[in-house]
């Protein structure tokens, strides 16, 4: 535990705290939250309080971020491993594909994927994916390129090190080296990559929801901000928008602190 730098620990505490808070407040005791909310009701949904919507949204956003972040990290890892194991032209093709996905802004690609996914599920071809599943799938389809590139570079660096060369010389196969020697060194890095995907996924989701393209139901933090942001221009509208915004900022702060601290100190960690 001492290996984890204090900033990362702070980030983790923040993340877990927010997760617990949204679970307790938004899921376990919603009635208590509704009755004791100091911020009053939301003007567009007068039967719901701001706290209910904000914490409910936090829970959904966190879920979207965790699932999409984990999926895209996993895809990235698999792609990178396959590319490194295969090597040669295949690796080059994979790298070009990564470049192509990486070059376009996430928001733009997610918009296109949402359009495609919604048309498909409207026609009954969605494979049972609701808005939540659709969003997770689009986010992971967009998000794998960054992790793939990071993992690939990391693997290339690690493979250059002596202990790997030694394992190879002793007759270790590609998979064996990857599993036994590279993976332990990669693990903290994978966690950092995952944590860095988390806020990106949440923010992309919120921007796409803001445009009215995604139909997250129940509302995510982003959709809540996107549907209630107009309240900001009215007197006292800040109480509606600011709590959700603050939660979003805290979430991002926690995730980015944790990931920065982890990725900055790989040597200490390994």
């Amino acid at each position, binding site marked *: 535990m001492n290996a984890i730098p204090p900033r990362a620990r702070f980030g983790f505490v923040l993340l877990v705290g927010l997760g617990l808070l949204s679970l307790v407040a938004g899921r376990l005791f919603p009635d208590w939250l509704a009755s004791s909310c100091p911020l009053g009701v939301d003007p567009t949904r007068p039967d719901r309080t701001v706290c209910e919507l904000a914490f409910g949204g936090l829970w959904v956003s966190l879920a979207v971020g965790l699932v999409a972040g984990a999926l895209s990290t996993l895809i990235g890892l698999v792609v990178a491993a396959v590319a490194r194991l295969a090597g040669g032209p295949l690796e080059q093709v994979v790298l070009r594909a990564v470049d192509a996905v990486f*070059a376009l802004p996430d928001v*733009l690609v997610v918009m*296109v994927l949402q359009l495609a996914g919604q*048309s498909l599920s409207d*026609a009954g071809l969605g494979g049972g994916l609701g808005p939540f599943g659709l969003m997770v799938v689009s986010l992971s389809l967009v998000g794998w390129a960054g992790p793939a590139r990071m993992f690939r570079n990391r693997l290339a660096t690690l493979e250059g090190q002596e202990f790997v060369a030694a394992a190879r010389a002793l007759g270790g196969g590609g998979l064996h080296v990857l599993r036994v020697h590279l993976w332990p060194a990669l693990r903290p890095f994978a966690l950092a990559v995952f944590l860095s995907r988390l806020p990106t996924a949440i923010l992309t989701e919120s921007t796409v929801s803001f445009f009215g393209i995604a139909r997250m139901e129940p509302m995510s933090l982003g959709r809540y901000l996107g549907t209630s942001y107009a309240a*900001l221009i009215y007197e006292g509208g800040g109480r509606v928008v600011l709590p959700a915004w603050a939660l979003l900022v805290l979430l991002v702060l926690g995730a980015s602190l944790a990931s920065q601290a982890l990725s900055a100190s790989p040597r200490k960690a390994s």
Partner: protein
Amino acid sequence: MRTVLQRLARQLVLVPVVAVASYFLMAMLPLTTESETKRQVSPELAASYRRDLGIGEPLGFLRPWEKLFRGERLGTSAQGITGDELVRKLSGSVGVGLMALPLALAWALGFALLRTRWRKGRWAVLGDAVPAVAFGTPVFIPALLVAPAVVERGHLLPELCAALVTSLWPGIFLGTLVGDALETELSRDYVRTALGKGLAPGAVLRRHVLPNVMPALLDAVGPVATALLAGSFAAERVLGLPYFGQLYVLAVLNKQVAVVVVATTTFASLLVVVSLGIEAVRYWVDPRSREARA
């Protein structure tokens, strides 16, 4: 020279990849069905979908481009666009982006310098908190805060504000990178030597340190340009600017699939142009990159 060409080719291949991928994604959508009653979109939209994407024709994926260059309309009469409209909208967005880029660079340098100063004092925590807050704030929130004051004011004021709000996060992001590079450079021996010889700290910074920080800056400009253009989508929507971002969002909302294909590819080409520009600047500014290639 060969490596230079290789790098160019790597960039340029992005355009056909995006064109083909977006085309086939759109072409597989079930927007047309045989029976009228099962159809989910208006007859005009279904007709334009078939017509503009050349569904079922050989080389159908060239159809949107063919129409575009002939000056014909893509999409329905009410929501579609023509080539010259697309170019006009795109130039508007690029204009906003060009305003935002120097702003972002200014934020970056300012933040980097502040952060190196903070590092020593009790404000060190701000060095982490500011980027997190900037990152955790979707562009539409600051845009909305300034919107009532600037929308419909004219004199490029909304455009300037759009540039301002979109440049916030990329600027700060760039700032952290530059700050790290700056710190590394400042701790090097040559800086101490220059300072020891009695040069003013400002002069050291300008003459010796900044040129060495430039490559790090250039590395980050690519993603930053992408972030700027993407951020302008939200800013344009809130600030009522009739440019590319608005066009794109409305095309997606109205299911103008041919427009989506063309606009996505155009956007990708723009990003390629930006990164080629960065390569050129790097070649010119950074002697190391020239040596590496020779």
